């Protein structure tokens, strides 16, 4: 019986109940919903319970692009309901699987429809194409009793009520005017009557019509309630509280989780956004895209068989697509050329779910972004998130010339914070960076992304001027270190009690894979940090560019795709 009810569509709100920046609260079959419209119009129907500590999301804040929980400020993205930020751990990227429970929803006939497990289209309502939505009337009575008594609803002599197969009631007057009332079962003894009248109305007429039916239905409500009060109240529904996924049970350790699932996306738009840079807007072929956080990248599987990483440039709440920027690198390994020359609008590509090795802290009093060339892409996403949240930042973009400025429309969102530095020589760039990075301080952070040489210069300058390692965040696009793989050594895997030999010419990552041990990887050239793993004992020759100098000196981590042992043996925490 319950499962039948759960697969139905029910109207749970009028469209007008969902103005911008508001969170509407309702209930269906005993389960509470927080319902909110994002600035892009999308209607989110979520369980009214923050996954963190169960606080109602209906007391949270609709920021237009995400919903912020009132208790600890966790942010959940429009559409995907995935958590994008956990303020208590500002330096971490939240686990991808922290996702609120969402329910199927559709907006039609001026109503928002939802169901626990509803599929397919909401009912068509022949004769009600140009209907007016009446004021909804909640009542303390079971849905069935309300439906039965609605058969007697009447606004003039000669009204006739008729029960419909979907549980709604249609009352028709002699002149053909008809009111169709749907019942929303909030709980076993608590319902809402949601009516539609089969004609459009505006101005004074509309007001009179709505008032008349509001009044009549409230009269009927009083009669239904006194009938309900005379009978025993049914037991409340007991909605099942879904458990969170297994990997969220333990406190998540630092570091990325394996992401294997591949997504199919279609190139919905391909544009030249700057000299030598195309932007690709990737939309899901079916379903929704997983949640991304600012700074995240995706692996793109190219038609030529290569896999390349590209940062997502989207702003918060832009969850219907991923937009990436690709620079044509004539001297590169061919990936960018494949995209520039062969990928067209309408093509379908395989991508990975987003992965974030470059998380954005939002506990800074001021943040300085330093972008060089195509390195602007992850920083654009970060700056858009900061801007939407009203956080203080400045954005320095180093380019060759005006023609090389990419994603102008997004830069325009934070114009006041933007400084474009054009055509500077390496020396002039260094001098400018010195000025830009002149003032380290409490809760100030720097994010740098760009070509290797500029990145190193910026890191050195920052360090020389007193920025600590913890305040300088960077992401390399490529590893410029000459990787030496001529050594041979042994690795012990502490947790799996295996000993393996790493010969010259093979990487640790390859040896692990050959032995059936899967650890996630992405760039496989020591730039992205995805294949990082813990070192329990042994010395490391670091050949990557993603660990900080402090991390390298500490020797507790290794990037397994490039780095090797300095000693004969390494004990790894796998």
């Amino acid at each position, binding site marked *: 019986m319950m499962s039948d009810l759960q697969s139905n569509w029910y109207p749970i709100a009028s469209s007008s109940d969902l103005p911008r920046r508001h969170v509407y609260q309702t209930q269906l079959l005993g389960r*509470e919903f927080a319902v909110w419209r994002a600035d892009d119009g999308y209607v989110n129907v979520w369980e*009214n*319970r923050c*996954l*963190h*500590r*169960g*606080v*109602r999301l209906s*007391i949270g804040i609709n920021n237009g692009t995400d919903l912020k929980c*009132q*208790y*600890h*400020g966790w942010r959940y993205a429009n559409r995907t309901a995935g958590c994008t930020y*956990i*303020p*208590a*751990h*500002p*330096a971490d990227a939240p686990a991808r699987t*922290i996702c609120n429970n969402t329910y199927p929803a559709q907006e039609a006939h001026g109503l928002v429809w939802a169901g626990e497990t509803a599929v397919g289209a909401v009912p068509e309502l022949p004769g009600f194409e140009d209907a007016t939505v009446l004021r909804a009337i909640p009542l303390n009575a079971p849905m069935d009793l309300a439906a039965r008594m609605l058969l007697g609803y009447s606004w003039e002599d000669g009204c006739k009520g008729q029960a419909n197969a979907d549980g709604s009631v249609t009352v028709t007057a002699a002149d053909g005017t008809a009111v169709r009332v749907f019942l929303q079962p909030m709980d076993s003894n608590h319902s809402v009557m949601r009516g539609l009248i089969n004609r459009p109305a505006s101005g004074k007429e509309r007001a009179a019509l709505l008032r008349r039916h509001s009044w009549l239905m409230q009269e009927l409500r009083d009669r239904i309630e006194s009938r309900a009060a005379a009978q025993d109240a049914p037991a409340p529904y007991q909605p099942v*509280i879904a*458990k*969170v996924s*297994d990997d*969220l*049970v*333990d*406190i*998540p350790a630092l570091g990325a989780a394996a992401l294997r699932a591949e997504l199919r996306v279609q190139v919905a738009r391909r544009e030249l956004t700057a000299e030598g840079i195309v932007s690709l807007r990737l939309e899901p072929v079916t379903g929704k895209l997983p949640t991304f956080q600012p700074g995240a990248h995706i692996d793109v599987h190219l038609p030529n068989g290569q896999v390349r990483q590209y940062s997502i440039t989207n702003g918060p709440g832009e969850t219907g697509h991923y937009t990436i920027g690709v620079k044509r690198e004539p001297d590169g390994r061919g990936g960018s050329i494949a995209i520039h020359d062969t990928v067209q609008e309408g093509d379908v590509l395989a991508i990975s779910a987003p992965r974030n090795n470059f998380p954005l802290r*939002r*506990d*800074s*009093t001021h943040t300085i972004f330093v972008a060089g060339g195509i390195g602007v892409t992850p920083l654009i996403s970060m700056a858009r998130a900061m801007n939407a949240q009203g*956080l203080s930042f400045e954005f320095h973009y180093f380019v060759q010339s005006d023609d090389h400025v990419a994603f102008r429309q997004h830069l325009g969102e934070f114009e006041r914070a933007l400084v474009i530095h054009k055509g500077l020589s390496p020396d002039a760039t260094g001098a400018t960076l010195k000025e830009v990075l002149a003032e380290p301080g409490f*809760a100030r952070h720097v994010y740098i992304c760009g070509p290797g040489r500029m990145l190193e210069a910026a890191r050195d300058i920052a360090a020389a001027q007193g920025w600590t390692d913890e305040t300088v965040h960077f992401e390399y696009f490529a590893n410029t270190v000459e990787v030496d793989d001529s050594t041979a050594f042994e690795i012990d895997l502490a947790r799996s009690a295996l000993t393996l030999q790493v010969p010259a010419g093979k990487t640790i990552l390859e040896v692990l894979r050959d032995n059936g041990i899967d650890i996630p990887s992405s760039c496989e050239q020591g730039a992205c940090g995805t294949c990082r793993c813990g070192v329990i004992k042994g010395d490391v020759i670091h050949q990557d560019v993603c660990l900080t100098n402090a991390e390298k000196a500490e020797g507790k981590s290794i990037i397994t795709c490039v780095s090797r042992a300095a000693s004969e043996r390494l004990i790894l925490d796998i």
Partner: protein
Amino acid sequence: MSTSKCDDQVTLDHWYAIAPIAEIEGAGIQQTTLLEQPIAYARNSARDVVVWTHEGVPGDVPDRNCLPVRERYGYVWTTLGAPEHDVFPIPEYAEADRRNIHAATFGVNVSAPRVIENFLDMGHFPFVHTDILGAEPHTEVKEYFVEVSEDPDEIVASNCKFWQPMAAAASTGGADVDYIYRVPHPYCSVLYKSSPLDESRKDVIAIFVQPLSQEQVRAHMLLSLLDDTNNDTDIRLFQQTIFGQDKPILENQYPKRLPLDPRAETPIRADKSAIAYRRWLSEKGITYGVIPSAA
């Protein structure tokens, strides 16, 4: 809500603060509820505090069949069971230069363990106690230690630090404030907070939760401070403001009972103490005010 009385023996076998002693003076017979059992309390003709159970009408002060009573930390404590130990110690309470203040007894429509978990939580300071105990963007909960000891049977979270906008009345800017939390009782917690006046000592704030039912409580709040500048009213009002901010959060938690199943909610590193607390309750076999994890 079930109207049957508590049958969780573990919960019954604890002491509970039921009222501030100061409120008994001259007030005649007063009534409250403990674990769904109506109880009454008063001073008898010998000026002793007497607590007894009744079923609807408290009657006169009885001279027999009364509940055990302790007077500790300014409150009357009683029990419906047979506690193994006396009321847990708060040694600082007896220090001569401290001001011990009853801040409030507030009713909250939530289970007792949800109140304790909130009391242990620092992550909410900037969002719930905005500009008092925290302020955005300084939201980080730094690593801290949690220990569960067997003797005494309690949880201790130490080395807790949180950035506060006005760490002390005398400070001009924000600073990290140090905290230590103790959970010596399933429904009581004691917090030690760095004192602006004396680096070597700490202010003490304690919360004693009296479960009325599985989903309703009275929270008694005790302050034991080294403060010698503010008057009692200001100190009380400050604490009431803080608790008043937590109240709507607590009353909007779903489910109201604390779920002990590790897969019911999503912990993060900042919730270490809460994780230890949930596990500790599970191990004790507490079933009152919680949703036990299906073994």
